[in-house]
């Protein structure tokens, strides 16, 4: 019985992999482009999901780390003429260092105050991206960021970049899954559900929260660097507080405690506005209504609703039997 289940699971994985590999060749270029953005948003959303779903922290500063990654890639490749990998590394190091330095004091806060603290960080960073035009190009931004080149294979179209972005996304999902499944993951959940009880059990809340915040910043920075190499241009418009709110919506819509939920949330954020845009200028109002509907009707997100639906089906199947 167990081997039958394993075979069935392996079959599902093989089918999913085949669909994933064939997808960019089966869909039009603009859809492949949206799939690339879905991958990028998944990486950025994963960090927020870890904080929200496993620590109960609302992080409204992800656009800051996303911007740092993007500007690091832009500056290193365009201004300095360094290889692309340096941009990824510099962005990651700066983001993690900032997350640590800022995280230590602000993660002492809880609830709304912590959310406001992260919002303030995002607002300050957004203003600095404007002001430090010698570094960021200000309103005009930095253009001409080269496409990624893997051993002479240039990822210059969405169907090629798709594979790279999603491999990075899968690696991040795997890392997030390991974190959640580890001893630290158990401590995180204990802290989320009762911080007093967790502290009584010698869980170092401050250190744990800071570590997850640093991981979140790393994911944000990676996503930002990937974004910069895809769009070939970065400007302040892409790293505003609005973008932080969009990133927060990903786990809220998809389901903060579920890693596949983050992918679902990223798909929702990327594809729904595109579909609704066919309906004219009211598309943003309709998108807002869709968000409200999901949050009100599915408080655990789309994956939570799906899990409940499946549980009901199983229960009905059991009672029928």
């Amino acid at each position, binding site marked *: 019985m167990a081997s039958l289940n394993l075979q069935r699971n392996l079959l599902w994985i093989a089918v999913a992999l085949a669909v994933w590999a064939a997808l960019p060749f089966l869909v*039009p*270029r*603009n859809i*492949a*482009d*949206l799939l690339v*953005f879905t991958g990028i948003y998944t990486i950025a959303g994963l960090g927020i999901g870890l904080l929200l779903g496993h620590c109960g922290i609302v992080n409204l500063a992800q656009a800051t780390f996303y911007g740092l990654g993007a500007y690091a890639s832009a500056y290193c490749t365009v201004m300095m003429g360094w290889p692309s990998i340096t941009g990824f590394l510099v962005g990651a190091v700066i983001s993690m260092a900032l997350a640590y330095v800022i995280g230590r004091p602000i993660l002492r806060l809880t609830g709304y105050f912590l959310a406001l603290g992260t919002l303030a960080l995002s607002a300050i960073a957004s*203003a600095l991206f*404007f*002001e430090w*035009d010698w570094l960021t*190009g*200000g*309103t*005009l*931004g*930095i*253009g*001409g960021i080269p496409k990624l080149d893997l051993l002479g294979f240039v990822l*210059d179209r*969405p169907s090629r970049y798709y594979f790279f972005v999603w491999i990075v996304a899968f690696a991040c999902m795997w890392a997030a899954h390991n974190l959640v499944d580890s001893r630290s993951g158990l401590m995180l959940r204990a802290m989320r559900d009762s911080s007093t009880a967790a502290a009584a059990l010698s869980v170092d809340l401050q250190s744990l929260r800071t570590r997850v915040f640093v991981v979140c910043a790393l994911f944000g920075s990676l996503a930002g660097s990937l*974004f910069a190499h895809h*769009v*070939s*241009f970065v*400007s*302040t*418009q*892409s790293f505003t507080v609005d973008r932080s709110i969009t990133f927060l919506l990903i786990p809220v819509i998809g389901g903060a405690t579920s890693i596949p939920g983050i992918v679902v949330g990223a798909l929702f954020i990327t594809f729904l*506005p*595109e579909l609704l*845009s066919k309906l004219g*200028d009211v*598309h*943003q109002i309709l998108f807002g209504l869709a968000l409200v509907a999901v949050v009100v009707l599915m408080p655990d997100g789309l994956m939570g609703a799906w899990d409940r639906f499946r549980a009901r089906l199983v229960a009905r199947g059991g009672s029928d039997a």
Partner: protein
Amino acid sequence: MSLSKIARFATALAGLTALAVGAQAQTPAAGEPIKIGAIVSATGAGAGLGIPERNGLLLAEKDINAKGGIKGRPIKMIIEDDASNPDTALSKANELIFGQKVVALLGPSLTASTVAVGGVTHANKVPQIAFTGIGPAVERERKCVAHVLPPQRLNAQALLEYAKSIRATKVGVLHDAGYGNVVMAELRPLADKYGVKLVAVEKFEIGATDTTTQAAKVKAAQPEAVFVIATSATPFRNVKQIQITQPVIAAIGSSSYEYVNAMGTAADNIAIPEFVVGEDPLPHQKAFVDLYKQAYNSTPKNYEAAAWDAAHIIASALNKAGADATNEKLCEAMKAPYSGVLANYDFSADDMTGIPIGSFVFSKLVGGKYTRTPFRVSQ
């Protein structure tokens, strides 16, 4: 038949032929439409630009088709909204170029989106006419991405020309951290050449709801004129509140009815170097202004005219190169001088715009209404 009769007959025949050709030119276009893609910011922060641009594009489409289209074939404008987001603009460009197979792309409305989309159009040699001034250095390499709005250096130059005309040599500047910062960067080196001393330069945040402190510092420097460079009505209200009585010269970014209405009583005695004063258009702008008023029951300004020009420029290039011309040929056909409603362009220029300073007109807000001043800069 005598020679004179032959001459009369020939003249009549020529007249009839000319009439027939004229009639043909006015025959509405028919046949398979030529698709032209456009991306505007119809929603989001850039909607103030995108909506007028969309109006200009739709009017131009109607006008071009009514006049026979491209060698008899109509054009079809496929307009997409990027929601003022460069990511969305990129996806929309991919859809229009590879999905809809448009022959050219018009727009987007914002610099960030223009540069993002330029990465795709440049790589695939698709002609693009952006509704922005030329942006970062990378845009100078993109020789098939034209711009129908002036580069910020020219906007800065126009401000200084007006200051010179009123003999203001000590100028204070109040500018925002976005658009204003970019114009300011061009203004500083030019000011010396015009013999203008910038006695106070004060910056404020984009979206600031109060700039009184900055305005007060400008006033304290006792300038002979004040430049306000922003996309907001707030600094104008503050300038009025703290009773700056010196002439105020605003950059084109704040020249829209939306901002003027928001200025309230402060919309008075403000000079603006711009291109279209719908209340008193230049002779070559009158037909467009009348057509626009008829279609939308409102007065057009610069962005409507820019979009109208972009559509006509691409139509002219298509007429020259042929509807089935390759992207390269269409690009080449586009790289020529063009006399538009907004300005006289020369797309073979290094900045892919070629607008001369003489294309500016200088308006003045008097009691909340635009009036055109007689001042022009010689070419």
